[in-house]
């Protein structure tokens, strides 16, 4: 597409001029914008409040090859901040509408939407991107993408991360007037899992409080939602998106509150408690996304040093921004060199699956297993399960091309805080009794 050089005047000024605040390997020049526009491929995960902003910011920061993935459809409550959507878009997939709107406005940018769950994509899909930008509101989804990005990380024989295998991530999160933006360079800076304690699980009310000693409006609502619903609607599961269900919970909560003399049950609070609604506004999303996009630009071009490595913003009382340099968890299961498993060459894939199910650090159920891009076993869909089932009786050693040691990827379910969640792990397999005959260390190849 023909385009005058003038359009990127401001970006070029950043990329063409030397300065004394740049990163050490920054070499200004026109090819930097070319690189950014031709070779850089960025994946935006989430097309909600942060995702919409990220797409705009990245497109106007010179990125041209952008993909966006989101499984949600547009709702009316999105419109106060997700500025790429209009009232007539309600019900349409977010990823598709967001991609279309940004492409309409910014010529030359190509955005490919993916209207699906992040777990639906193969690892190969993710490996194609040079950088991943996360605009998510769920801990589970962050954890999953983090594991995917970390799964590409390879280590040399001294356990140093290999530069070219690092898949950088920028991650943002907001709640009301507060938010965070961070840079994750797997192997170098802490990954999401290294600092998982920053995201404590949500506290739930004890059932006995709900049933016997309710004190607040939220207790009454959760009683109607978690206890009364099941008592009355045997077998019918509660659907938070069904207004009739919500109305029922609300009226039951009101009755209970009256019974105990507890004030404060409203329909809005009922929705908030049942759906665990996090308040969200345009301005905080704009601030956090802009910080993430700026970091993505800096990581890709080296035009300045980057955030190291966690920025928090709080606008409630005055304005507070703070940068914290968190450190990596040495033994992180996700971004470390991987859990080491020593196996006999006779261990079959079936046996291996049992082993990782019992391994105290892993406790991984329903695993699907890939080795260097090759699927060894898939749990689902049934067609693939059937196709790979015959591998179960074969020795893992044979399936791994008889190398003495290497890394394999396992995708399965694990339980965290009593909740099952999907996870992706990297395991280092070493076969007993085989020395370095093949002279292949685990980081080479591929």
């Amino acid at each position: 597409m023909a385009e005058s050089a003038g359009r990127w005047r401001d970006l070029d000024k950043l990329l063409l001029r030397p300065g004394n605040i740049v990163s050490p390997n920054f070499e200004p020049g026109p090819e930097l914008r070319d690189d950014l526009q031709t070779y850089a491929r960025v994946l935006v995960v989430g097309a909600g409040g942060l995702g919409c902003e990220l797409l705009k910011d990245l497109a106007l920061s010179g990125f041209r090859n952008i993909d966006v993935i989101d499984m949600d459809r547009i709702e009316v409550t999105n419109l106060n901040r997700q500025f790429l959507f209009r009232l007539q878009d309600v019900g349409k997939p977010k990823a598709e509408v967001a991609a279309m709107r940004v492409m309409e406005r910014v010529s030359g940018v190509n955005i490919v939407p993916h209207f699906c769950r992040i777990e639906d994509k193969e690892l190969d899909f993710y490996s194609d991107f040079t950088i991943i930008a996360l605009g998510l509101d769920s801990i589970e989804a962050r954890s999953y993408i983090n594991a995917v990005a970390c799964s590409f990380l390879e280590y040399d024989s001294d356990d140093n991360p290999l530069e070219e295998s690092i898949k950088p991530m920028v991650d943002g999160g907001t709640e009301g007037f507060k938010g965070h933006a961070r840079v994750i360079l797997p192997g170098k800076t802490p990954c999401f899992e290294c600092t998982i304690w920053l995201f404590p699980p949500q506290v739930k009310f004890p059932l006995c409080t709900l049933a016997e000693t309710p004190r607040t409006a939220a207790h009454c609502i959760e009683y109607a939602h978690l206890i009364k619903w099941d008592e009355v609607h045997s077998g019918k599961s509660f659907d938070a998106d069904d207004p009739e269900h919500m109305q029922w919970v609300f009226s039951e909560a009101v009755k209970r509150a009256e019974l105990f003399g507890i004030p404060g049950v409203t329909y809005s609070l009922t929705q908030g408690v049942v759906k665990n609604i996090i308040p969200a506004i345009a301005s905080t999303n704009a601030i956090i996304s802009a910080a993430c996009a700026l970091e993505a630009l800096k990581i890709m071009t080296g035009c300045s040093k980057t955030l190291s490595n966690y920025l928090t913003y709080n606008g409630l009382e005055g304005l507070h921004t703070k940068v914290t340099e968190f450190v990596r968890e040495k033994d992180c299961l996700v971004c470390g060199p991987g859990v080491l498993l020593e196996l006999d060459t006779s261990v079959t894939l079936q046996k291996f699956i049992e082993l990782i199910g019992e391994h105290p650090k892993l406790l991984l159920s329903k695993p699907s297993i890939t080795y260097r891009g090759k699927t060894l076993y898939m749990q689902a869909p049934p067609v693939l399960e059937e196709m790979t089932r015959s591998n179960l009786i074969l020795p893992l050693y044979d399936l791994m091309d008889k190398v003495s040691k290497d890394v394999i990827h396992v995708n399965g379910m694990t339980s965290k805080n009593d909740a099952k969640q999907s996870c992706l792990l990297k395991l280092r397999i070493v076969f007993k009794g085989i020395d370095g005959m093949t002279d292949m260390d685990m980081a080479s190849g591929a």
Partner: protein
Amino acid sequence: MVESKTKYDRQLRIWGEQGQAALEQACICLLGCGPTGSETLKNLVLGGVGSITIVDGSKVVEDDLGNNFMLDESSVGKSKAKSVCFFLQELNDAVKAKFVEESPEALIERHPSFFSQFTLVIATQLVEPSVLKLDIICRQANVMLICARSYGLTGLVRISLKEHTVIDSKPDHFLDDLRLNNPWPELKRFVESIDLNSTDPVVHKHTPYVVILVKLADEWANSHGGCLPSTREEKKKFKDLLKGRMIAIDEDNYNEAIEASFKISASPGISPALHRIINDSSAEVDSTSSDFWVMVAALKEFIANEGGGEAPLEGSLPDMTSLTEYYVNLQKIYQAKAETDVLAVEQRVRNILKRIGREPGAISKSNIKSFCRNARKLSVCRYRPIEDEFNSPMPAELQKYLIDEDYSIAVGFYILLRAVDRFAANYNRIPGVYDGVMDEDISCLKTIAVELHAVAAFIGGIASQEVIKLITKQFVPMSGTFIFNGIDHKSQLLAL
């Protein structure tokens, strides 16, 4: 309207219907609709401000499309104000969007009274001489002003107005108002009616910690010459005393009591911040005083009289392990006391209003109630005129910042931004527009005239956040000058 209630649901949960109503009544003027201005306004249009008026005299050129999302190919050659206005209107048809095709500098010069129609003016990328004039105009007209600039990898945001007072400051963490070491008679009577040594294990483990702490604090004081635990040793002993009363380890109420035991040592009386407010010269009210200061004057009298040194009781009770009946009764006792305090303050407000020659009913009961509930959290923000900041800088502050590692980069940016403005004022252009001239001096700003979209979006985000706080009169706006550091994000607020 049902639909707008749903549309704004996620923000109504933050600032409520009152905050939303204030936004919907606000008239905002934007000067300069480059990316910084467009992004600031975008966030406000989405939130549903009443009206926006965009002032910009320039025409859209191809260059503008690379960093401004509120323009597209079809805008080239047209008025920038008109084009941006069109795309902003698309975001929310409830907002009245207008534009004036004139340069902000010229408008400030020619038509200062233009600005008095607005609630708040946002000046973006405006150079120093015009900022100074605009500040004087806005202060005279009682219009709030916020300045925002993006410059390469840095930028600044600065609020300017005489005074902003906040009742509903919604702080993140604030110690609850339980009066455990100073219970009023009704609370004392309730506590006395409960037997801590109940033999019913269900009652024992569901006696609220407020009751436990009031009782045991009293017990402690009786055996310690009327004093409460103050040293670390005593506080530990007090916790042991609590532990000793447990009859099972799973008694959450006792664990909560141990965790909250520091609250009985809370020092009596009001905080230094509130002390400053009630002793502010504005609390000497006359007929020109604002409602806020009239209520502060009443609060001051209340503290000295009925309050016995304390502010009105807040009246809310945090959730705690308890029998429903105990909890609901406690809640009523706290609410009743808060209501009594409100009545006392209200009486004083009415008397003061009468004394200063205003209608005694001029301030509504619900406003007084809200004021009392938030009395401990009041906030007063004042901002120096920009002219004072420029002409009489505080060398001591600057000096302090320059030698402080955390601040030196930010202060460097500030000085450079000012230098850039001086340069522009003298040479009528912005350094960096022509390569090769003047680069050495300010090369560390790297790309002086650049308005990077991501930086503009960040600065615009900060500016719009502050606008929301100022208009809703909720939360506390920033003080000083915010200097954005896009290099390592160690941004700072400078008090200059």
